């Protein structure tokens, strides 16, 4: 018989591995806690930069210092160097956080609201509404969201509002499917039946009894989606379909820096690093929230 060892699953041998399990649980709790601490710290830095950009940035992000164009980091009062027209990279990275966070949060707001409403409609009422909504969701899943976003922007044109709208509209499916699934599992529970029996109408049942029970799942998906929205916005800006070039954005800066990789690596590197750190913060916080609020997801 195979002796139970460290490489067998946790649940299968929990009674045999008391002290080991205790140590592992402690380690797991510590990791989860570190996810929360690191994630919150990274997001706090990004939010601080976005909120206080004019105060904390060392220079105006549009001011051109032609005498010091393509200056490497730590020269001529430019901590992260300058770009091809002498604009301060640090200031542009700080101001770029405004675009990324605005798009990330607002697009998730649009996607979450739309997806929750459609998921509620499909899950609570069922029938043809459910069929239509879920078929549209299936169809949307057949086209990669980036391809769909690019196709819509090709028609509507780029710009901050269009990017937010497109990302919101292409991002609803996740919420719709999860909300519908959750409602299907709770709409016939005793407390919902009881509310129905005492004469509560659909709006009251949904608002007072269903939404509070599915809020955790929506919050977890939303937190994890902010990061992917930030990456998608940056990708769209990188290929010239995001925010206008005169607005400092991390994706747009990386695109500008791509032409100077051999001579000025810093132009593309620091905005990319800023995206990675911010998205990592959102993902760490999302993971922690998932473990705490809804481990089934």
């Amino acid at each position, binding site marked *: 018989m195979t002796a139970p060892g460290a490489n067998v699953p946790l649940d*299968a041998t929990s009674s045999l591995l008391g002290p080991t399990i205790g140590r*592992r649980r402690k380690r797991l709790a510590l990791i989860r806690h570190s996810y929360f601490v690191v994630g919150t710290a990274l997001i706090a830095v990004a939010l601080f930069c976005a909120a206080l950009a004019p105060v904390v940035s060392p220079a105006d992000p549009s001011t051109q210092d032609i005498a010091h164009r393509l200056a490497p980091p730590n020269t001529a009062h430019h901590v992260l160097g300058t770009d091809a027209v002498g604009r301060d990279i640090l200031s542009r990275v700080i101001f770029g956080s405004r675009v990324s966070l605005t798009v990330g949060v607002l697009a998730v707001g649009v996607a979450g609201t739309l997806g929750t409403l459609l998921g509620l409609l499909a899950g609570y009422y069922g029938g043809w509404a459910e069929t239509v909504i879920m078929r549209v969701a299936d169809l949307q899943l057949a086209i990669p969201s980036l391809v769909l976003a690019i196709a819509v922007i090709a028609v509507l044109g780029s710009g901050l509002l269009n990017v937010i709208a497109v990302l919101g509209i292409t991002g609803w499916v996740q919420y719709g499917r999860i909300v519908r699934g959750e409602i299907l599992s709770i709409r016939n529970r005793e407390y919902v039946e009881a509310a129905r029996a005492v004469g509560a109408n659909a709006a009251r049942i949904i608002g007072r009894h269903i939404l509070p029970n599915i809020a955790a799942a929506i919050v977890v998906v939303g937190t994890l989606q902010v990061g992917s929205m930030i990456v998608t916005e940056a990708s769209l800006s990188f290929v010239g379909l995001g925010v206008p070039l005169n607005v400092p954005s991390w994706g747009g800066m990386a695109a500008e820096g791509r032409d100077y990789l051999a001579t000025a690596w810093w132009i593309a590197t620091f905005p990319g690093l800023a995206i990675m750190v911010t998205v990592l913060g959102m993902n760490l916080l999302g993971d922690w929230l998932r473990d705490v609020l809804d481990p089934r997801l």
Partner: protein
Amino acid sequence: MTRYLARRVVHAALVVLAVLAVVFVLIRLGGDPTPLFLPPTADAQEIAATRHALGFDRPLYVQFVDYLGRAVRGDFGVSLRQGEPAMGLVLERIPATIRLTALAFAIMLLIALPIGVLAAVRRNSLYDLCGMLFALVGQSMPTFWLGIVLILFFAVKLRWLPAFGAEGVAALILPGITLGTYSAAIATRLVRSGVLEVLPQDFVRTARAKGLSQAVVLCKHTLPNASIPVITVLGLQVGTLLGGAIITEQVFAYPGMGRLALQAIGNRDMPVVQAFVVVTAAIIAATNLAVDVCYSLLDPRIRYT
């Protein structure tokens, strides 16, 4: 099995037809689609002439039937920039994109399967922690930035690999790694979850109780049963890879259909954009069909449901 397959083929065809309808609606979202088929400098006379030439002055249902009829034959019109059939231009670029996507898919498998399985089998160990850290960082890294960093190190500093183009196998390595890493990060996590769901089940415990070695329990009893959710995840990644290929092709100036689509958007070459979206959806529908066939081969119960 034949009936099951026929059902799946019809489903895939319906998805492509629905995407055609979406594209039709999409280009009419802003009202008159004629300006989308012309340079921004076109005057009113040119717009009117093009509207008539492209049939946009006809009733909507006539336009739709005509559009569907031409689209199912692969006729999306002529590229406004290059004067050649739009579908032909997209099809010409498909082999390059498929080469890149296939390499990225292979890289994804090479990374995600061992790390995901090991992380699940040694749950809560250092392996698991490192695997999940890779998944977190990989998912947080924008594809274009990873590409830029790889170019910086391997092409600019070390001069080991070419930074741009599609000449030879070496030119595929950096774009392949760039494209595969993001999907590998997602897949690692999902492979781990898939294996973790199977590990506590009774048949695994029984196999272990019989005295089978860990390797046999894993290879003979755990992985085949974890393969269905894992194949779903891997199949879904094809769509992610095709989407990511647009960005990767742009970073490495790789001549695939994603780069063609971006150039077409820049040139307001709407016939090419339409053909690109439909071809992408068709490739994804075909992949999903292949995944369905794999399911039915792996799990006979699926054929009879």
